[in-house]
Protein backbone atom coordinates (compact mmCIF):
# COMPACT_ATOMS: atom_id res chain seq x y z
CA UNK A 1 0.00 0.00 0.00
CA UNK A 2 2.14 2.87 -1.27
CA UNK A 3 -0.21 5.63 -0.09
CA UNK A 4 0.18 4.47 3.54
CA UNK A 5 3.96 4.44 3.17
CA UNK A 6 3.80 7.90 1.62
CA UNK A 7 1.54 9.11 4.44
CA UNK A 8 3.99 7.81 7.06
CA UNK A 9 6.90 9.54 5.35
CA UNK A 10 4.88 12.73 5.04
CA UNK A 11 3.87 12.53 8.71
CA UNK A 12 7.54 12.01 9.52
CA UNK A 13 8.51 15.15 7.61
CA UNK A 14 5.78 17.18 9.31
CA UNK A 15 6.83 15.94 12.76
CA UNK A 16 10.45 16.60 11.81
CA UNK A 17 9.65 20.18 10.86
CA UNK A 18 7.85 20.69 14.19
CA UNK A 19 10.82 19.27 16.11
CA UNK A 20 13.22 21.34 14.02
CA UNK A 21 11.39 24.52 15.05
CA UNK A 22 12.03 23.59 18.68
CA UNK A 23 15.52 22.20 18.19
CA UNK A 24 16.92 25.17 16.26
CA UNK A 25 16.26 27.64 19.10
CA UNK A 26 17.40 25.15 21.72
CA UNK A 27 20.70 24.42 20.02
CA UNK A 28 21.28 28.09 19.17
CA UNK A 29 21.06 28.92 22.88
CA UNK A 30 23.15 25.87 23.80
CA UNK A 31 25.89 26.65 21.31
CA UNK A 32 26.34 30.20 22.62
CA UNK A 33 25.69 29.79 26.36
CA UNK A 34 26.92 26.17 26.79
CA UNK A 35 24.06 24.98 28.95
CA UNK A 36 20.79 23.24 28.25
CA UNK A 37 17.91 25.68 28.42
CA UNK A 38 15.05 23.21 28.95
CA UNK A 39 12.69 26.03 29.82
CA UNK A 40 12.78 26.74 26.07
CA UNK A 41 9.80 24.34 25.94
CA UNK A 42 8.00 26.38 28.56
CA UNK A 43 8.48 29.56 26.47
CA UNK A 44 6.90 27.69 23.57
CA UNK A 45 3.94 26.51 25.66
CA UNK A 46 3.20 29.87 27.26
CA UNK A 47 3.41 31.50 23.81
CA UNK A 48 0.80 29.07 22.45
CA UNK A 49 -1.47 29.85 25.43
CA UNK A 50 -0.91 33.59 24.97
CA UNK A 51 -2.03 33.26 21.36
CA UNK A 52 -5.12 31.38 22.54
CA UNK A 53 -5.99 34.17 24.99
CA UNK A 54 -5.35 36.97 22.50
CA UNK A 55 -6.94 35.45 19.41
CA UNK A 56 -9.72 33.29 20.86
CA UNK A 57 -10.64 34.74 24.28
CA UNK A 58 -9.97 38.43 23.54
CA UNK A 59 -10.79 38.03 19.86
CA UNK A 60 -8.31 40.56 18.48
CA UNK A 61 -7.06 40.43 14.89
CA UNK A 62 -5.33 37.09 14.29
CA UNK A 63 -2.14 38.52 12.76
CA UNK A 64 -1.84 41.18 15.45
CA UNK A 65 -2.28 38.43 18.03
CA UNK A 66 0.55 36.42 16.45
CA UNK A 67 2.83 39.48 16.48
CA UNK A 68 2.07 40.21 20.14
CA UNK A 69 2.64 36.55 21.00
CA UNK A 70 6.10 36.60 19.41
CA UNK A 71 7.05 39.74 21.34
CA UNK A 72 5.72 38.11 24.52
CA UNK A 73 7.84 34.98 23.90
CA UNK A 74 11.00 37.10 23.52
CA UNK A 75 10.24 38.95 26.76
CA UNK A 76 9.66 35.70 28.68
CA UNK A 77 12.92 34.22 27.37
CA UNK A 78 14.98 37.31 28.21
CA UNK A 79 13.42 37.57 31.67
CA UNK A 80 14.42 33.95 32.34
CA UNK A 81 17.99 34.80 31.37
CA UNK A 82 18.15 37.98 33.44
CA UNK A 83 16.36 36.70 36.53
CA UNK A 84 17.87 33.23 36.80
CA UNK A 85 20.72 32.40 34.45
CA UNK A 86 22.63 35.68 34.73
CA UNK A 87 22.99 35.58 38.55
CA UNK A 88 24.06 31.93 38.24
CA UNK A 89 26.66 32.80 35.59
CA UNK A 90 27.89 35.60 37.82
CA UNK A 91 28.76 33.20 40.60
CA UNK A 92 30.32 30.82 38.04
CA UNK A 93 27.79 28.04 38.60
CA UNK A 94 28.50 24.79 36.73
CA UNK A 95 26.43 23.83 33.69
CA UNK A 96 24.80 21.11 35.83
CA UNK A 97 23.41 23.83 38.13
CA UNK A 98 22.12 25.77 35.13
CA UNK A 99 20.53 22.58 33.77
CA UNK A 100 18.66 21.97 37.05
CA UNK A 101 17.68 25.65 37.20
CA UNK A 102 16.26 25.39 33.68
CA UNK A 103 14.19 22.33 34.63
CA UNK A 104 12.94 24.22 37.69
CA UNK A 105 12.01 27.15 35.41
CA UNK A 106 10.18 24.77 33.12
CA UNK A 107 8.08 23.25 35.93
CA UNK A 108 7.49 26.77 37.27
CA UNK A 109 6.05 28.03 33.97
CA UNK A 110 4.13 24.76 33.48
CA UNK A 111 2.49 25.13 36.86
CA UNK A 112 1.66 28.78 36.10
CA UNK A 113 0.03 27.71 32.81
CA UNK A 114 -1.92 25.03 34.69
CA UNK A 115 -3.07 27.50 37.36
CA UNK A 116 -4.03 30.25 34.89
CA UNK A 117 -5.52 28.28 31.98
CA UNK A 118 -6.53 25.00 33.63
CA UNK A 119 -5.82 21.40 32.69
CA UNK A 120 -8.41 21.02 29.92
CA UNK A 121 -7.27 20.80 26.29
CA UNK A 122 -7.71 23.98 24.25
CA UNK A 123 -7.84 24.50 20.49
CA UNK A 124 -7.26 27.55 18.31
CA UNK A 125 -9.80 27.24 15.48
CA UNK A 126 -8.53 28.21 12.01
CA UNK A 127 -9.46 27.55 8.42
CA UNK A 128 -7.22 24.64 7.53
CA UNK A 129 -7.92 23.04 4.13
CA UNK A 130 -6.57 19.55 3.45
CA UNK A 131 -4.56 18.74 0.31
CA UNK A 132 -4.18 15.39 -1.36
CA UNK A 133 -0.66 14.39 -2.41
CA UNK A 134 -0.71 11.06 -4.31
CA UNK A 135 -3.26 9.68 -1.86
CA UNK A 136 -1.62 11.09 1.28
CA UNK A 137 -3.12 13.96 3.28
CA UNK A 138 -1.44 17.19 4.34
CA UNK A 139 -3.08 20.32 5.76
CA UNK A 140 -2.32 23.93 4.87
CA UNK A 141 -0.91 24.59 8.34
CA UNK A 142 1.40 21.62 7.96
CA UNK A 143 2.65 22.99 4.63
CA UNK A 144 3.24 26.33 6.35
CA UNK A 145 5.14 24.63 9.19
CA UNK A 146 7.49 22.92 6.73
CA UNK A 147 7.94 26.16 4.74
CA UNK A 148 8.53 28.30 7.85
CA UNK A 149 11.07 25.89 9.30
CA UNK A 150 12.97 25.97 5.98
CA UNK A 151 12.86 29.79 5.84
CA UNK A 152 13.93 30.13 9.48
CA UNK A 153 16.83 27.81 8.90
CA UNK A 154 18.06 29.96 6.01
CA UNK A 155 17.55 33.14 8.05
CA UNK A 156 19.49 31.65 10.96
CA UNK A 157 22.30 30.61 8.65
CA UNK A 158 22.43 34.15 7.24
CA UNK A 159 22.38 35.65 10.73
CA UNK A 160 25.20 33.49 12.02
CA UNK A 161 27.50 33.69 8.98
CA UNK A 162 26.85 37.09 7.46
CA UNK A 163 25.87 39.59 10.17
CA UNK A 164 28.00 41.30 12.79
CA UNK A 165 25.75 40.03 15.59
CA UNK A 166 26.03 36.48 14.32
CA UNK A 167 29.81 36.72 14.19
CA UNK A 168 29.87 38.08 17.74
CA UNK A 169 27.63 35.21 18.85
CA UNK A 170 29.98 32.71 17.28
CA UNK A 171 32.93 34.41 18.91
CA UNK A 172 31.31 34.15 22.36
CA UNK A 173 30.35 30.54 21.62
CA UNK A 174 33.92 29.77 20.66
CA UNK A 175 35.70 31.47 23.54
CA UNK A 176 33.93 33.91 25.81
CA UNK A 177 37.09 35.35 27.37
CA UNK A 178 38.85 36.03 24.10
CA UNK A 179 35.65 37.58 22.72
CA UNK A 180 35.62 39.89 25.70
CA UNK A 181 39.19 41.06 25.11
CA UNK A 182 38.28 42.13 21.57
CA UNK A 183 35.47 44.28 22.92
CA UNK A 184 32.43 42.02 22.72
CA UNK A 185 30.19 42.18 25.78
CA UNK A 186 29.18 38.54 26.42
CA UNK A 187 26.18 39.48 28.56
CA UNK A 188 24.77 41.56 25.68
CA UNK A 189 25.33 38.65 23.30
CA UNK A 190 23.57 36.28 25.72
CA UNK A 191 20.60 38.63 25.82
CA UNK A 192 20.46 38.70 22.01
CA UNK A 193 20.78 34.92 21.93
CA UNK A 194 17.79 34.56 24.24
CA UNK A 195 15.79 37.08 22.18
CA UNK A 196 16.42 35.18 18.95
CA UNK A 197 16.09 31.73 20.52
CA UNK A 198 12.85 32.66 22.26
CA UNK A 199 11.53 34.21 19.07
CA UNK A 200 12.01 30.79 17.49
CA UNK A 201 10.21 29.22 20.47
CA UNK A 202 7.40 31.74 19.92
CA UNK A 203 7.11 30.85 16.23
CA UNK A 204 7.04 27.17 17.20
CA UNK A 205 4.39 27.87 19.85
CA UNK A 206 2.19 29.75 17.36
CA UNK A 207 2.44 27.12 14.62
CA UNK A 208 2.15 24.09 16.89
CA UNK A 209 -0.65 25.78 18.81
CA UNK A 210 -2.61 26.17 15.57
CA UNK A 211 -1.75 22.70 14.25
CA UNK A 212 -2.27 20.70 17.46
CA UNK A 213 -4.22 21.07 20.69
CA UNK A 214 -2.91 23.05 23.68
CA UNK A 215 -2.28 21.27 26.97
CA UNK A 216 -0.12 22.42 29.90
CA UNK A 217 2.54 19.72 29.45
CA UNK A 218 3.01 20.39 25.71
CA UNK A 219 6.25 22.29 26.28
CA UNK A 220 7.86 19.40 28.13
CA UNK A 221 7.22 16.77 25.47
CA UNK A 222 8.19 19.14 22.64
CA UNK A 223 11.44 20.30 24.21
CA UNK A 224 12.42 16.68 24.81
CA UNK A 225 11.79 15.90 21.14
CA UNK A 226 13.59 19.02 19.98
CA UNK A 227 16.48 18.31 22.26
CA UNK A 228 16.64 14.67 21.12
CA UNK A 229 16.73 15.89 17.52
CA UNK A 230 19.54 18.25 18.48
CA UNK A 231 21.56 15.45 20.13
CA UNK A 232 21.10 13.22 17.06
CA UNK A 233 22.31 15.94 14.68
CA UNK A 234 24.67 17.97 16.82
CA UNK A 235 23.86 20.01 19.91
CA UNK A 236 26.21 22.81 18.97
CA UNK A 237 25.14 23.27 15.36
CA UNK A 238 21.78 24.61 14.24
CA UNK A 239 21.86 22.82 10.85
CA UNK A 240 22.82 19.61 12.67
CA UNK A 241 19.92 19.92 15.09
CA UNK A 242 17.51 20.49 12.21
CA UNK A 243 18.85 17.43 10.38
CA UNK A 244 18.54 15.37 13.58
CA UNK A 245 14.97 16.58 14.08
CA UNK A 246 13.93 15.35 10.65
CA UNK A 247 15.62 11.99 11.27
CA UNK A 248 13.77 11.73 14.60
CA UNK A 249 10.42 12.61 13.01
CA UNK A 250 10.91 10.05 10.24
CA UNK A 251 12.12 7.24 12.52
CA UNK A 252 9.25 7.78 14.95
CA UNK A 253 6.59 7.78 12.28
CA UNK A 254 8.00 4.96 10.20
CA UNK A 255 8.65 3.02 13.43
CA UNK A 256 4.94 2.80 14.21
CA UNK A 257 4.67 0.59 11.12
CA UNK A 258 6.00 -2.13 13.45
CA UNK A 259 5.26 -0.84 16.96
CA UNK A 260 2.02 0.34 18.63
CA UNK A 261 1.71 4.12 18.21
CA UNK A 262 1.87 4.61 22.00
CA UNK A 263 5.56 3.74 21.80
CA UNK A 264 6.35 6.79 19.64
CA UNK A 265 7.84 8.58 22.66
CA UNK A 266 9.81 5.53 23.70
CA UNK A 267 11.39 5.39 20.21
CA UNK A 268 12.64 8.95 20.73
CA UNK A 269 14.16 8.14 24.13
CA UNK A 270 15.84 5.01 22.86
CA UNK A 271 17.39 7.05 20.03
CA UNK A 272 18.44 9.67 22.59
CA UNK A 273 20.07 6.98 24.70
CA UNK A 274 21.91 5.41 21.78
CA UNK A 275 23.31 8.76 20.67
CA UNK A 276 24.24 9.93 24.18
CA UNK A 277 26.12 6.69 24.75
CA UNK A 278 27.77 6.05 21.41
CA UNK A 279 27.90 9.36 19.59
CA UNK A 280 27.31 12.23 22.03
CA UNK A 281 28.64 14.73 19.49
CA UNK A 282 25.85 13.83 17.07
CA UNK A 283 25.92 12.91 13.40
CA UNK A 284 27.62 16.11 12.31
CA UNK A 285 30.22 15.25 14.91
CA UNK A 286 31.58 18.63 15.98
CA UNK A 287 33.71 18.20 19.06
CA UNK A 288 31.82 19.51 22.11
CA UNK A 289 33.97 21.98 23.98
CA UNK A 290 34.21 21.47 27.73
CA UNK A 291 32.44 24.45 29.25
Amino acid at each position, binding site marked *: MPSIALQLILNGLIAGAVYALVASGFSLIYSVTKFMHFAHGAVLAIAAYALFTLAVSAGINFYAAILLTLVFACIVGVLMDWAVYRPLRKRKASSA*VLLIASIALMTLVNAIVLAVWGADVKTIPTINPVFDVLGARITLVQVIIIAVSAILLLALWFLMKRTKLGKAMRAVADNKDVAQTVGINPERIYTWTFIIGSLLAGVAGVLIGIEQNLYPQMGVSLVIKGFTGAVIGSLVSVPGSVLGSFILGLVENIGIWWLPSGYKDAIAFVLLFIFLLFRPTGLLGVKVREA
Partner: protein
Amino acid sequence: MAFVNYLIHLAILIGMYSILTVALNFAVGFTGLLNLGHIGFFGIGAYASALLALQLGWPLWLSILAGGSVAMIAGILLALPTTRLKGDYLALATLGFAFIMGSVARNWTELTRGALGIPGIPKIVSDNTQFLIIVLIIAVITYIVFFMLSRSRFGKACQAIRDDELAAKMLGKNTFLHKISALGISAFFAGIAGALFSHYITFIDPSIFGLGDIILLFSMLIVGGLGSVKGSAIGTIVLFLIPEPLRFIGFPSSILGPMREIIFALILLLILIYRPRGLFGKVDLA
Protein backbone atom coordinates in the same frame (compact mmCIF):
# COMPACT_ATOMS: atom_id res chain seq x y z
CA MET B 1 -9.20 14.24 65.29
CA ALA B 2 -9.19 15.12 61.62
CA PHE B 3 -6.22 17.37 62.26
CA VAL B 4 -4.30 14.60 64.01
CA ASN B 5 -5.01 12.27 61.06
CA TYR B 6 -3.73 14.95 58.72
CA LEU B 7 -0.53 15.34 60.75
CA ILE B 8 0.01 11.57 60.69
CA HIS B 9 -0.51 11.54 56.91
CA LEU B 10 2.01 14.35 56.51
CA ALA B 11 4.54 12.56 58.73
CA ILE B 12 4.15 9.36 56.70
CA LEU B 13 4.82 11.23 53.44
CA ILE B 14 7.82 13.00 54.98
CA GLY B 15 9.17 9.64 56.18
CA MET B 16 8.86 8.04 52.73
CA TYR B 17 10.24 11.01 50.80
CA SER B 18 13.16 11.40 53.21
CA ILE B 19 14.19 7.80 52.36
CA LEU B 20 14.06 8.81 48.70
CA THR B 21 16.06 12.01 49.24
CA VAL B 22 18.74 10.46 51.44
CA ALA B 23 19.20 7.75 48.79
CA LEU B 24 19.43 10.37 46.03
CA ASN B 25 22.04 12.25 48.03
CA PHE B 26 24.26 9.19 48.07
CA ALA B 27 24.36 9.15 44.26
CA VAL B 28 24.46 12.92 43.64
CA GLY B 29 26.08 14.35 46.76
CA PHE B 30 28.49 11.59 47.79
CA THR B 31 29.42 9.97 44.49
CA GLY B 32 28.92 12.92 42.15
CA LEU B 33 26.54 11.12 39.78
CA LEU B 34 24.00 13.72 38.64
CA ASN B 35 21.05 11.33 38.48
CA LEU B 36 17.85 13.00 37.27
CA GLY B 37 16.10 9.63 36.92
CA HIS B 38 15.78 8.83 40.62
CA ILE B 39 11.99 9.05 40.42
CA GLY B 40 12.17 6.17 37.92
CA PHE B 41 13.49 3.86 40.67
CA PHE B 42 10.74 5.06 43.00
CA GLY B 43 8.12 4.21 40.36
CA ILE B 44 9.69 0.84 39.53
CA GLY B 45 9.66 -0.13 43.22
CA ALA B 46 6.04 1.00 43.52
CA TYR B 47 4.88 -0.95 40.45
CA ALA B 48 6.93 -4.07 41.21
CA SER B 49 5.75 -4.39 44.80
CA ALA B 50 2.12 -3.61 43.93
CA LEU B 51 2.02 -6.17 41.11
CA LEU B 52 3.79 -8.91 43.09
CA ALA B 53 1.38 -8.44 46.00
CA LEU B 54 -1.75 -8.19 43.85
CA GLN B 55 -1.09 -10.70 41.07
CA LEU B 56 1.12 -13.29 42.74
CA GLY B 57 -0.15 -12.77 46.28
CA TRP B 58 3.32 -12.36 47.79
CA PRO B 59 3.46 -11.37 51.46
CA LEU B 60 3.96 -7.62 51.65
CA TRP B 61 7.33 -7.59 53.41
CA LEU B 62 8.66 -9.80 50.61
CA SER B 63 7.07 -7.78 47.78
CA ILE B 64 8.49 -4.55 49.25
CA LEU B 65 11.98 -6.05 49.44
CA ALA B 66 11.49 -7.32 45.87
CA GLY B 67 10.40 -3.81 44.82
CA GLY B 68 13.70 -2.47 46.17
CA SER B 69 15.64 -5.26 44.48
CA VAL B 70 14.00 -4.73 41.07
CA ALA B 71 14.80 -1.02 41.36
CA MET B 72 18.38 -1.91 42.28
CA ILE B 73 18.72 -4.13 39.20
CA ALA B 74 17.32 -1.27 37.10
CA GLY B 75 19.87 1.05 38.74
CA ILE B 76 22.75 -1.26 37.93
CA LEU B 77 21.54 -1.75 34.35
CA LEU B 78 21.24 2.04 33.96
CA ALA B 79 24.67 2.59 35.51
CA LEU B 80 26.50 0.05 33.33
CA PRO B 81 26.45 2.12 30.14
CA THR B 82 25.86 5.63 31.54
CA THR B 83 28.30 6.21 34.41
CA ARG B 84 31.12 6.90 31.97
CA LEU B 85 29.14 9.93 30.74
CA LYS B 86 30.06 13.29 32.23
CA GLY B 87 27.87 15.88 34.01
CA ASP B 88 25.17 17.12 31.67
CA TYR B 89 25.13 14.02 29.51
CA LEU B 90 24.68 11.71 32.49
CA ALA B 91 21.89 14.00 33.72
CA LEU B 92 20.11 13.74 30.38
CA ALA B 93 20.55 10.00 29.99
CA THR B 94 19.10 9.42 33.47
CA LEU B 95 16.27 11.87 32.83
CA GLY B 96 15.57 9.95 29.61
CA PHE B 97 15.50 6.74 31.68
CA ALA B 98 12.73 8.17 33.91
CA PHE B 99 10.75 9.16 30.82
CA ILE B 100 11.20 5.72 29.23
CA MET B 101 9.91 4.10 32.42
CA GLY B 102 6.87 6.41 32.32
CA SER B 103 6.32 5.47 28.68
CA VAL B 104 6.55 1.75 29.49
CA ALA B 105 4.08 2.17 32.38
CA ARG B 106 1.66 3.92 30.03
CA ASN B 107 2.00 1.46 27.15
CA TRP B 108 2.61 -1.99 28.63
CA THR B 109 -1.09 -2.21 29.38
CA GLU B 110 -1.19 -6.01 29.90
CA LEU B 111 1.02 -5.56 32.95
CA THR B 112 0.40 -2.03 34.23
CA ARG B 113 -3.13 -1.29 32.91
CA GLY B 114 -1.58 1.82 31.32
CA ALA B 115 -3.11 5.18 32.19
CA LEU B 116 -5.90 3.49 34.18
CA GLY B 117 -3.38 2.71 36.91
CA ILE B 118 -3.48 -0.04 39.51
CA PRO B 119 -6.17 0.30 42.19
CA GLY B 120 -6.76 -1.75 45.33
CA ILE B 121 -3.12 -2.28 46.35
CA PRO B 122 -3.18 -3.95 49.80
CA LYS B 123 -2.18 -1.88 52.82
CA ILE B 124 0.48 -3.13 55.22
CA VAL B 125 -1.58 -2.17 58.26
CA SER B 126 -5.00 -0.53 58.20
CA ASP B 127 -4.14 1.83 61.06
CA ASN B 128 -2.14 4.86 59.90
CA THR B 129 -0.47 5.39 63.28
CA GLN B 130 1.00 1.90 63.11
CA PHE B 131 2.04 2.48 59.50
CA LEU B 132 3.75 5.72 60.53
CA ILE B 133 5.83 3.79 63.07
CA ILE B 134 6.82 1.25 60.39
CA VAL B 135 7.81 4.04 57.97
CA LEU B 136 9.81 5.85 60.65
CA ILE B 137 11.67 2.67 61.59
CA ILE B 138 12.57 2.03 57.94
CA ALA B 139 13.56 5.69 57.52
CA VAL B 140 15.84 5.59 60.55
CA ILE B 141 17.42 2.34 59.31
CA THR B 142 17.98 4.07 55.95
CA TYR B 143 19.67 7.09 57.56
CA ILE B 144 21.92 4.80 59.62
CA VAL B 145 22.83 2.71 56.57
CA PHE B 146 23.78 5.77 54.53
CA PHE B 147 25.53 7.42 57.46
CA MET B 148 27.67 4.30 57.99
CA LEU B 149 28.21 3.98 54.23
CA SER B 150 29.47 7.55 53.99
CA ARG B 151 31.99 6.81 56.78
CA SER B 152 33.06 3.47 55.32
CA ARG B 153 36.03 2.78 53.03
CA PHE B 154 33.53 2.36 50.20
CA GLY B 155 31.86 5.71 50.92
CA LYS B 156 35.20 7.50 51.21
CA ALA B 157 36.22 6.09 47.85
CA CYS B 158 32.92 7.30 46.34
CA GLN B 159 33.62 10.80 47.66
CA ALA B 160 37.11 10.64 46.24
CA ILE B 161 35.62 9.74 42.83
CA ARG B 162 33.29 12.73 43.13
CA ASP B 163 36.18 15.08 43.90
CA ASP B 164 38.70 13.72 41.42
CA GLU B 165 37.97 10.58 39.46
CA LEU B 166 41.38 10.34 37.85
CA ALA B 167 43.16 10.60 41.19
CA ALA B 168 40.92 7.89 42.68
CA LYS B 169 41.75 5.68 39.71
CA MET B 170 45.47 6.26 40.16
CA LEU B 171 45.19 5.20 43.79
CA GLY B 172 43.97 1.87 42.49
CA LYS B 173 40.24 2.29 43.07
CA ASN B 174 37.93 0.56 40.63
CA THR B 175 35.85 3.69 39.96
CA PHE B 176 33.51 1.90 37.55
CA LEU B 177 32.52 -0.70 40.17
CA HIS B 178 32.13 1.95 42.86
CA LYS B 179 29.83 4.08 40.72
CA ILE B 180 27.67 1.10 39.74
CA SER B 181 27.39 -0.03 43.36
CA ALA B 182 26.57 3.49 44.54
CA LEU B 183 23.75 3.88 42.01
CA GLY B 184 22.49 0.35 42.77
CA ILE B 185 22.32 0.99 46.54
CA SER B 186 20.69 4.38 45.96
CA ALA B 187 18.13 2.78 43.62
CA PHE B 188 17.38 -0.01 46.13
CA PHE B 189 16.25 2.44 48.81
CA ALA B 190 14.34 4.55 46.27
CA GLY B 191 12.52 1.35 45.28
CA ILE B 192 11.72 0.59 48.93
CA ALA B 193 10.30 4.11 49.31
CA GLY B 194 8.20 3.59 46.15
CA ALA B 195 6.91 0.25 47.43
CA LEU B 196 5.92 1.80 50.77
CA PHE B 197 4.21 4.60 48.87
CA SER B 198 2.13 2.21 46.74
CA HIS B 199 1.01 0.20 49.79
CA TYR B 200 0.03 3.40 51.57
CA ILE B 201 -1.83 5.31 48.82
CA THR B 202 -3.20 1.93 47.47
CA PHE B 203 -3.33 3.33 43.92
CA ILE B 204 -0.56 4.09 41.41
CA ASP B 205 -0.59 5.27 37.81
CA PRO B 206 2.09 6.42 35.30
CA SER B 207 2.01 9.99 36.66
CA ILE B 208 4.29 8.64 39.42
CA PHE B 209 7.17 9.18 36.93
CA GLY B 210 6.35 12.89 36.60
CA LEU B 211 8.75 15.77 36.04
CA GLY B 212 7.25 17.73 38.94
CA ASP B 213 8.43 15.11 41.40
CA ILE B 214 11.97 15.30 40.04
CA ILE B 215 11.99 19.01 40.90
CA LEU B 216 10.51 18.30 44.33
CA LEU B 217 13.30 15.76 44.99
CA PHE B 218 16.03 18.13 43.87
CA SER B 219 14.55 20.96 45.95
CA MET B 220 14.64 18.74 49.04
CA LEU B 221 18.13 17.54 48.19
CA ILE B 222 19.66 20.95 47.52
CA VAL B 223 17.83 22.79 50.33
CA GLY B 224 19.19 20.15 52.72
CA GLY B 225 22.61 20.19 51.14
CA LEU B 226 24.70 17.81 49.04
CA GLY B 227 26.83 15.33 50.91
CA SER B 228 24.88 15.50 54.17
CA VAL B 229 22.54 12.69 55.30
CA LYS B 230 21.11 14.92 58.02
CA GLY B 231 20.58 17.69 55.46
CA SER B 232 18.45 15.48 53.21
CA ALA B 233 16.17 14.44 56.06
CA ILE B 234 15.74 18.04 57.21
CA GLY B 235 15.36 19.33 53.65
CA THR B 236 12.47 16.90 53.15
CA ILE B 237 10.73 18.08 56.32
CA VAL B 238 11.19 21.75 55.41
CA LEU B 239 9.88 21.39 51.86
CA PHE B 240 6.87 19.36 52.93
CA LEU B 241 5.90 21.86 55.61
CA ILE B 242 6.32 25.08 53.60
CA PRO B 243 3.34 24.69 51.22
CA GLU B 244 1.03 23.16 53.85
CA PRO B 245 -0.45 26.48 55.14
CA LEU B 246 -1.92 26.88 51.61
CA ARG B 247 -4.31 24.05 52.47
CA PHE B 248 -5.93 26.15 55.18
CA ILE B 249 -6.31 29.32 53.11
CA GLY B 250 -8.99 27.50 51.14
CA PHE B 251 -7.71 27.40 47.58
CA PRO B 252 -9.59 24.96 45.32
CA SER B 253 -7.66 21.73 44.76
CA SER B 254 -7.20 22.54 41.04
CA ILE B 255 -5.08 25.53 42.11
CA LEU B 256 -3.45 23.83 45.09
CA GLY B 257 -1.43 21.34 43.01
CA PRO B 258 0.10 23.94 40.68
CA MET B 259 0.69 26.28 43.65
CA ARG B 260 2.75 23.62 45.39
CA GLU B 261 4.82 23.08 42.23
CA ILE B 262 5.32 26.84 41.84
CA ILE B 263 6.56 27.06 45.43
CA PHE B 264 8.95 24.10 45.02
CA ALA B 265 10.38 25.48 41.77
CA LEU B 266 10.81 28.97 43.27
CA ILE B 267 12.53 27.60 46.37
CA LEU B 268 14.90 25.57 44.21
CA LEU B 269 15.72 28.59 42.01
CA LEU B 270 16.28 30.88 45.00
CA ILE B 271 18.51 28.33 46.74
CA LEU B 272 20.54 27.75 43.56
CA ILE B 273 21.08 31.49 43.14
CA TYR B 274 21.55 32.67 46.73
CA ARG B 275 22.62 29.70 48.84
CA PRO B 276 23.89 26.96 46.53
CA ARG B 277 25.06 24.75 49.39
CA GLY B 278 21.69 24.70 51.11
CA LEU B 279 21.44 24.24 54.87
CA PHE B 280 24.12 21.61 55.54
CA GLY B 281 25.80 21.15 52.15
CA LYS B 282 29.42 20.12 52.00
CA VAL B 283 30.05 20.30 48.24
CA ASP B 284 28.83 22.19 45.16
CA LEU B 285 26.91 20.57 42.35
CA ALA B 286 29.61 19.57 39.87
